[in-house]
């Protein structure tokens, strides 16, 4: 009897054709939906040359929009950072009743349309709102002014840092902190010397995502801003106004700055992911 030939091949890989086809489809899809728009922003911005691009950015209204965007982010990100750290400390290091409800509530702003996020502040502080008459009587302007924009920005970026830190700190447990306390460290020393170094990459990761959203938020801010040029327009709102005035070059010039911010965000994010992997700190991906 001759040796039987093995006819059945064990297949744990796809054929080359299928592999190439899948890679092709994936790349085509990503280039069409992500690559092309990203390139298009810069192409449209420089369509009429450097000169016009540069002028568009130096326009006073554009300038004030850039400033307002940075102010809003500079308040919203630290505020949510403090919140994120204290929420994660309470949730990850202690056992208490109602914890999972609290986690759900923290995620709530993600489940709400940006427009609705703006709307709720109109309902609170608008002329017909709960605090409207009182604010008017004391001549305090929250809505259609900078404070309203900051509040709306805080709302939409509310969960970013907390939901990055909570799973991270939960996965790290509390033994190291207990060890620190048993060695005589105070609460602040424990946090500063033991907890913080262990979460630094996760913290940075959350801050970067939070900042990107804070600077780019459109819907919520649009509702509370009042669209006063040079006063209550953030960069995304200014893009809208310019675009609706058919001033495409100017619109895309500002947009190109925001796109640059996005690219830098992605770069830092990749860098942080790489660093975190190296230091063995598990990141919780996705926003």
């Amino acid at each position, binding site marked *: 009897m001759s040796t039987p030939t093995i006819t059945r091949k064990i297949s744990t890989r796809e054929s080359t054709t299928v592999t190439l086809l899948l890679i092709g489809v994936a790349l085509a899809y990503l280039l069409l939906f992500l690559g092309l728009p990203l390139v298009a922003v810069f192409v449209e911005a420089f369509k009429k040359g450097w000169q016009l691009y540069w002028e568009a950015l130096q326009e006073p209204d554009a300038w004030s929009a850039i400033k307002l965007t940075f102010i809003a982010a500079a308040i919203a990100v630290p505020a949510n950072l403090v919140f994120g750290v204290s929420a994660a400390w309470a949730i990850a290091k202690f056992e208490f009743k109602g914890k999972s409800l609290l986690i759900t509530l923290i995620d709530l702003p993600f489940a709400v349309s940006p427009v609705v996020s703006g709307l709720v502040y109109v309902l609170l502080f608008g002329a017909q709102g709960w605090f409207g008459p009182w604010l008017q009587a004391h001549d305090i302007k929250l809505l259609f002014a900078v404070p309203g924009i900051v509040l709306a920005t805080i709302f939409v970026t509310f969960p970013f840092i907390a939901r990055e830190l909570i799973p991270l700190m939960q996965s790290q447990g509390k033994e190291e902190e207990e060890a620190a*306390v048993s*060695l005589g*460290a105070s609460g602040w020393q424990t946090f500063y010397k033991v907890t913080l170094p262990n979460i630094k990459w996760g913290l940075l990761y959350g801050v970067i995502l939070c900042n990107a959203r804070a600077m780019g938020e459109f819907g919520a801010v649009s509702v509370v801003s009042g669209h006063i040029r040079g006063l209550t327009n953030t960069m995304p709102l200014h893009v809208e106004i310019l675009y609706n005035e058919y001033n495409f070059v100017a619109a895309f010039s500002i947009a190109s700055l925001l796109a640059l911010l996005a690219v830098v965000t992605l770069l830092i994010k990749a860098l942080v992911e790489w660093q975190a992997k190296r230091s063995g700190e598990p990141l919780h991906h996705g926003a």
Partner: protein
Amino acid sequence: MSITIENLNKNFGSYKALDNINLEVNSGELLALLGPSGCGKTSLLRIIGGMELADSGKLLFHGEDVQQRDARERNVGFVFQHYALFRHMTVFENVAFGLRVKPKKERHNEAEIKRRVHELLNLVQLDFLHDRYPAQLSGGQRQRIALARALAVEPKILLLDEPFGALDAQVRKELRRWLRRLHDELHITSIFVTHDQEEALEVADRVVVMNKGKIEQVGTPDEVYAAPATPFVYKFIGNVNMFHSRDHAPWAAEHGDAVAYVRPHDIDISRIAQDDTALPVEVKLVRAIGSIVRVEVALDSSSEIIQIELSRERFDSAPLVIGDKVFIRPRQFRVFESGVLNELSAA
């Protein structure tokens, strides 16, 4: 420093983790809390360390109530089961931590900290690793660093939670001998938690056997092995054969419905009946394991296996083969009433 525990209770919800614990730990002794998982030993250790609070009862260090004292102020060194080394600090910084977080006026200067840390690292024989990170160490090395870190603050009491639990067998054996020698050098009152009877018997001055939140027995390793106070201790420490008096323990029959506990090495084998209470059995298995020979026999009347251990010399003087019909009789046994922890007699 001595530790006194009086009527200590701890519940987690409806689960009784500690049920009226009373215990006296002598100054300078090395005590083992031994028991199966969930017996409450770790809860007890954490309460002593101040990581948990008892629901009721007293906890005294050298006669002084410390229940209200914060973990930071108890002067207790705690070695965690998974070591809990600070992963972002070098070995040196880990050991130095307790010295660096002292309040300003009590803090030593940098040179003194350096001297002390190196002294401790030399004590645990790992000074050459001082600039490594925990991730670069082996399990046994981490364990010793964790110990050095706990010792840095000069604790009066040292608590160790399953100190060798995460190590493989060979390292574990070496480390526990090392811990014993270290304790003999330092004489700090030390308590360690373990589920490994061999570990407890080999290392500790005294062993506390726990089960279901209660203390079953406190005694020297020899006492808990040779004179177990309860059936649980018999079963948990060492091997044991159980003979139900009614069926097949004529030598214990006077106790009525009871169970006799007999260690495998406390049984004599003979070709002729030693006396009228000897049990006729058949040899089912003979296996030489190192210096002892394990013989398994079965009563003629049942299929239950009885384990017997003989020294090699003893076995060689009267060899057995499978199928031999022989008689057995216990040299030493204890009788407990069935199902009740009530000791009736000991032979």
